[in-house]
């Protein structure tokens, strides 16, 4: 090991901080371009949807329990459950379905 772990950590911290803070601090004007407004309106939903699937079915021990968690989450959120309840329902679904899939 010729490299110092703390310098690695410092590099990671500085680079990510710059990425996160520069647009927020430098762009102070409202951008009136309709394309950019629409683009930015859709960005959160698109990013989150893309990150959710198929990642959710790879996160669990079995893709079946991941898929069940996805369905549970969609239904609970559709019915208007809170952030916390939806999240908890997904965890519970994985736990219970894995108890059945891989009995103790």
């Amino acid at each position: 090991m010729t490299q110092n772990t703390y310098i690695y950590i410092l590099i990671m911290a500085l680079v990510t901080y710059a990425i996160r803070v520069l647009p927020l601090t430098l762009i102070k004007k409202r951008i009136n371009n309709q394309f950019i407004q629409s683009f930015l309106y859709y960005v959160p939903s698109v990013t989150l949807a893309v990150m959710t699937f198929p990642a959710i079915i790879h996160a669990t021990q079995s893709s079946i329990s991941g898929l069940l968690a996805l369905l549970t989450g969609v239904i609970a959120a559709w019915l208007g459950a809170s952030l916390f309840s939806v999240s908890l329902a997904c965890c519970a679904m994985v736990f219970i379905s894995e108890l059945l899939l891989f009995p103790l």
Partner: protein
Amino acid sequence: MKSLSSIESGSRSGKFSAFKNGMRDGIPIGLGYLGVSFSLGIAAKNAGLTAFQGFLTSALVKASAGQYAGFIVMAASAPYVEMIIVTFIANIRYSLMSFAMSQRMNPDTPWYHRLLMGDYITDEIFAISIARPGYLDPFYTYGAALVAIPSWAIGTALGIIAGNILPMRAVSALSVALYGMFLAIIIPPARDSKVLTGLILVCFASSFASSVLPWLSTLSEGSRTIILTISISSIVAVLFPRNWEGEGT
């Protein structure tokens, strides 16, 4: 979502209630972080990090895939310049989120709030902050960060110390908490909008396709997220343009 829309900023009690709401909404994030950072800690341990170093990395960097990529660089003892490039590529999507947030800030927000708020842009804290109507409230974001970030850092340290103690089924169950939260954010607005419903289905399908297609699947998850976010959002923005005239006032 009802509670998310109760916003009264400006006054001292408004700041406090925003902070409290942020802390409340930070709880599921913190739970999810605990599971994810625990498994991240196992990767950190393999890269030779001590519990303290893992804690420090998580507290400062706050990026799951980005940190994972960084640990791989450390494990290889690669040159520092490689760490700069890898960190940049793995985390560049945060600049998109930061850009989106810049358009939802109250113009009177002082610079130090921007410097501090920006540091807490993670996928999850960004998502719950931007899901609230009107101007972004820094205190809501701080409340969520106060709950979520320590559990991210502690989870990483625990993963390094006790990687093999927590039963797999518990880690497995916790690991979907974050996705459950994402669903709780994207599904409710889609109920009233066919465009958003269709959009989510298209996102799921293309994300799945990109994870199995020959060239795309070799890219990191972070790169795929950026490519899909930019291309899908651009197409939808052209097909279904939106005006924000009602927002932020």
